[in-house]
């Protein structure tokens, strides 16, 4: 999609005294997209989200929603939260306990003085979308966590906002409900084509539901990319470590080119094929644990794949996958394999992975 992005952030800084929570953050999100702000706690993701909502006053920067400037420190523009026309789902759900479910959902519409009939039909539609229509007359204080979550979503979409913000909406739910709600939220967002910003510290959740993931660390953006690019081609050591399970192997670059050569500390020589240019100063090779395959019988060198030998040091059965710790010349290697391949502890294995799955990173 082209045209004016729904959300544009430029040079955004939020500081409390000397403490800088958000440091020169810039990104834009296209209409109908869902972008995730991902990072460890204290990385500035929630502060960024709250600055978009107007609940936090940035020190400097520009925020534009659908082409309208809602914050600009240089031009002294700061539209208050209630007039930015966006909506938000809070981490605590923020369901008002003194109202019924329907009153909660109708709030944004009542504030906008919509006619009665429109309020009723929109509330019904919103509650239908989250499968809570049977609960309209319930006092909101009598809901379970998952139900409160649904009501919070219904309330946020009821007045058809142009932008929807999610502040760790699933973090208070148990694991099973979380994965279910994740699917529902994504379906809802795509059906309504509503531009969304989603904050989470759960990398799996971020990868699963986003069009783009914005990884933040210590107030700054580390990388913005589609989930699969982020996973396969982390741009920094932080991203490689924070997103997914990766082996970070230390060593030096011996040769640069379309296929570079990397020698690990233990003297293992590996081939790396990367679309990003290699400077030769990289000291880390990142390798996803699920990009490695193991075999018990010695394998014939398959094309240009990296092949090495090792022994199974430890095996842990996780159900959906089996995690191996392999002793090999470069130290220890974490490998995740499907539970259909079981290798005994102590067995000798041959290790294989492709050069295009290796990523070279600097410190």
């Amino acid at each position, binding site marked *: 999609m082209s045209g004016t992005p729904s959300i544009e952030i430029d040079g955004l800084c939020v500081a409390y005294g000397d403490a800088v929570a958000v440091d020169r953050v810039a990104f834009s999100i296209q209409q109908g997209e869902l972008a995730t702000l991902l990072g460890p706690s204290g990385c500035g993701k929630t502060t960024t989200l709250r600055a978009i*909502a*107007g*609940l936090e006053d940035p020190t400097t920067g520009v925020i534009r929603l659908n082409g309208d400037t809602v914050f600009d420190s240089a031009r002294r523009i700061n539209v*208050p*939260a*209630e*007039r*930015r*026309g*966006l*909506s*938000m789902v*809070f*981490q*605590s759900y*923020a369901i*008002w*306990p*003194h109202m019924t479910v329907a009153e909660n959902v109708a*709030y*944004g519409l009542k*504030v*906008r003085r919509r006619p009665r009939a429109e309020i009723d039909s929109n509330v019904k539609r919103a509650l239908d979308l989250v499968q809570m229509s049977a609960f309209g007359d319930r006092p909101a*204080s009598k809901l379970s966590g998952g139900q409160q979550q649904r009501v919070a979503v219904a*309330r946020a979409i009821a*007045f058809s906002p142009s932008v929807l*913000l999610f502040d760790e909406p699933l973090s208070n739910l148990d694991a099973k409900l979380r994965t279910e709600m994740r699917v529902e939220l994504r379906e809802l967002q795509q059906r309504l084509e509503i531009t969304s910003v989603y904050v989470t510290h759960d990398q799996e959740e971020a990868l699963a539901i986003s069009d783009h993931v914005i990884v933040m660390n210590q107030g700054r953006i580390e990388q913005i990319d589609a989930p699969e690019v982020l996973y396969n081609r982390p741009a920094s050591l932080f991203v490689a470590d924070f997103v997914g399970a990766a082996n970070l192997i230390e060593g030096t670059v011996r040769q640069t080119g379309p296929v570079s050569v990397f020698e690990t500390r233990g003297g293992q020589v590996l081939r790396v094929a990367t679309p990003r240019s290699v400077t030769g100063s990289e000291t880390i090779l990142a390798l996803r644990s699920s990009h490695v395959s193991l075999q018990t019988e010695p394998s014939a060198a398959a094309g240009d794949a990296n092949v090495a030998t090792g022994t199974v040091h430890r095996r842990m059965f996780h159900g959906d996958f089996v995690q191996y710790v392999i002793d090999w010349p470069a130290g220890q290697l974490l490998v995740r394999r499907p539970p259909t391949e079981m290798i005994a502890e102590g067995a000798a294995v041959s290790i294989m992975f492709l050069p295009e799955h290796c990523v070279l990173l600097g410190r």
Partner: protein
Amino acid sequence: MVLVLLPCAALVLYPLVFIISESLNVGDPGVFPPEIISLSNFARLKDDVPIILNTLYVSVAATAMAVVFGFVLAWILTRTNVPGGGRFERLMELPYYMTPLVGAMAWGVLAGPKTGLLNQVWHLTGATGDLFNIYSPLGIAWVMALFEGTVAFVMISAAMKSMDPSLEESARVLGGSKLRTAFGITLPLVAPGVLSAIVFVFAEMLGAFAAAFVLGIPGRFYVITTAIWESTQSFPPDYGTAAALGLSLFLAMTVTLTIARLIMRKGTYATITGKAFRPRPVNVGAGRWLCLAVVMAYLLVAVILPIGALLMTSFQKFATVILAQSIFTLDNYRTALATGTLGSAFVNSMILGVSVATIGVLVMGVLTWIIYRSRLPGRTAIEYVLMFPQAVPRLVFGLGLLWAWINIPIPIYGTLWLLGIAYFTVFLPLGLRTLAGVVLQVDRSLEECACVCGAGWMHRMRTVSLPLLRPGIAAAWLLIFIASIRELGASIFLMGPQSKVISPAIINAWLSASSELSAAMAMLLTATIFIAVIVLFGVARTFVRTDA
């Protein structure tokens, strides 16, 4: 915001300026600023060493009793399987609401020499001499411990309740016996809470007035507060000494309260997580009936006996109750409610209570919002200033207010206006603390969500903030109302002939030796307070419910 903050800060600080200047004034006590300044008022304090020793003696004894009562009751009610359990908890606060003044008079009736009801019963058994003379230093301490020391129970049971039960359970799992767990784990963990309760109660006792006044003055036994009062009543009034004594007392209380706060902040381990635990009660077996007996005994001496004694006295025709020959009458209540000066004292107190509570909740609500929700620079300093009256003994504060407002060319001295202003000022800490607790309980995101939904400030207040805060606001209103109608220390200096209020009026009746009339007035006061307390507890219960 500045428009609200500055006047309130001035209300607190202005009277203190007068106390300081008066304590240095050795010239004409009625002239401000003082013409001759010297420290001789403080130098003369060495003559008051016996009074200071009296104060320490009574305060230490009262603190010791209050903390022992508080600890035992808190342990029984929070940690054992006593029959009735938590239902007794709120009843334990009743003595505090009954006020030390009413408690002291009641115990005067119960255990006065010779004619005290308990002593009369003692004589019936054939014994000679008195069982107990309440008009003694230990008697004063006993009354103070019962009616002023409730805070010890509240603080200690809060410490016991806030303890994560898993801390004890892990000691048990690791092989510690019940006793070993109690001494090795439980006690050290509640120790900071108990310690800060001791210091806090001690500060409270230093500034206590009513019990020492009712029970000490007849035997010419003075503590600092009663000495301050006495020196203002002499002719000519010795305001210099009063101010010097008052300032010293204020400093002593400030130091002790600071220590209490430091213990609380530094000494508490991670037990206070803000989560309300209900620790698993210890099964004490048949001992639970003993525990119940202890609780009942406490309620007997602190609530039932005093109220019974006063009730009986209030129906008597003659001051002294001789059990064998009493004549019952309703005259005392008729006099108390008649539209004379006494009747108007009751009405005045009600007017003051309602208006101070109403205006107070409004203004203090704004103050609370500024202190806890805005980002105004220096708001912690503001909080500190507004919490100041907490450390100033009421009596001393009343004295400062008296001088402050006499020296202002607004003719409100001797009117209810002055009393209203005084009440508002001294109840700032109470109101702010109650409202802050309420505001902090309501999650900020509830308001933010309304904001994001498009509601402006007014709409947000009307539809979200105020409805959520309503029970807490009602509780604050009731607490200020109760505090107002029972106020004694500040009122005793500030009330004029045209602006009598109930507590000092009770004292006046008591001093003019009509204990049956003061008993009737005390019963009216107590009944009013109890009604307010019942409403308060009801409101508190609904608040807990909406919270969950």
